[in-house]
């Protein structure tokens, strides 16, 4: 069974406004309204991401210090 966040309620326009402010963005009202209309499909997308990975499952980003050290050779 998938372990995701689709059960959470959708953010309200006021929630979105608050999240944008918390991100430190100061959008003109017209642009904010455009984004309030655009965000719900992104929120649904993010909530569909499965979460039930094993502790050992690494993300696709891999830190390779030998490669970075090689840049300075």
């Amino acid at each position: 069974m998938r372990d995701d966040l689709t059960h959470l309620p959708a953010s309200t326009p006021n929630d979105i406004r608050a999240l944008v402010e918390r991100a430190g963005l100061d959008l003109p009202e017209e642009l904010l309204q455009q984004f309030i209309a655009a965000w719900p499909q992104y929120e649904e997308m993010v909530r569909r991401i499965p979460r039930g990975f094993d502790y050992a499952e690494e993300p696709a980003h891999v830190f390779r210090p030998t490669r970075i050290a090689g840049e300075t050779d």
Partner: protein
Amino acid sequence: MDIPFLTIAELGRAYERRDLSPVEVTRALLDRIAAHDGKLHSFIRVTEGVALAEAQAAERELMAGERRGPMHGIPYGLKDIVETAGIPTTGHSKLRQDHVPTEDAEIVRRLKAGGGVLMGKLATWEFALGGPSFDLPWPPARNPWDRDRLPGGSSSGPGAAVTAGFVPAAIGTDTGGSIRGPAAFCGIAGLKPTYGRVSRRGVFPNTFTMDHIGPMTRSAEDISLMLQVIAGFDPTDPGSEDCPVPDYRAALDGGIKGLRLGLVEGWHEGAGAHPDLGPAIAEAVSVLRGLGATVEPVRLSSLRDYTDCKTTISSVELYAIHERDLRTRPRDFGRILRNRVLPGALIRAEDYLAALRWRTALAREQAAVFQRVDALITAGARTIADRADPDQPDRLVSAPSITMPFSVSGVPALAIPCGFSRAEGMPLSLQIAAGTMQEATVLRIAHAYQQATDWHRRHPVLS
């Protein structure tokens, strides 16, 4: 000879026989661009002076018997997120409309060293993501098969310019399908190589972990010739892979008898897919079987899953790239780009990491399949090219993408034409993908298919 539609391979042979010269070809293409691009908008900037100087240099060298490689004297265009020293590189955006780089991107350096002839900088969706947009300093490119339609994106200019016979080759970039989509909608060939096969240095980033640079041409053979020049390790690109570069042209020969192909079930049919696509893919499979390949059904995760994974990762990385401009000059973004970048500000770190862990799982799923098949077959696009409608809703998230699965896994994937829709007369496309660094396999299958079909030899008539 019909110069505008000669391939790289045909031009190379014509140069060897001295039937044509690079200057003659360059002038013919510049004239064609001047006559027709006013209606197609595939170029942001035509670099006529550079093109003629490089063509003259190539001509002198070829006449002296010096041959630098398959791109020597071959005109090409660059998507305008590829940096060119001394030539504006705008990203098709107001944000960078006056940006003049001081250095060439690594691929430009390689194309110059290979004797290529730069014809100009080509239209893109804003910074290879925001489009199709009608509120930018330059209009969106149009589809040469039907100017009321778009060429797809984000490599819209490369798709339109190659299709229109303005250049035989162009460089596109592909994060979620931006080479393969325009190739599919325009009826040309477009390759997204393996992540790390072609250097990203000097190309404006979209999504650090998924950006690919690749060729767009009119045949698989031409893809092999251009890839030969641009592929290879670049220590200045942190994602670059230090793997040997095979002889891609030589790998085309030998046919596909005995190759095992997997036809992905459920991706190219069903809701949202063009009704002519299923029969066109079935016919392509029949051709490939006739050439000696075996084709078996394969099941992978849904396009919805791949699209969600890719777009979540992209949104966050995009925001990291554009945050400063969003804070200081949000009105200078096109509406579509702004609304595609802003979600990254609201996606939490744990969501991003979950998507990255999911990416590993999805890439493993494909790697397991590539243990039992040599390549996967699906469509290059699920629809035909969209109409040019400024009011069309944004479908980046809502419409599952058939190109994103191979963006997520980073494997090579090529789109080539496989028919035309009956009602609209617009191109349909086949997509071929193989395991990491298996570009030669993808190209061999596509070349065999194109030796048996002529879809890639059909060209629009420009009026």
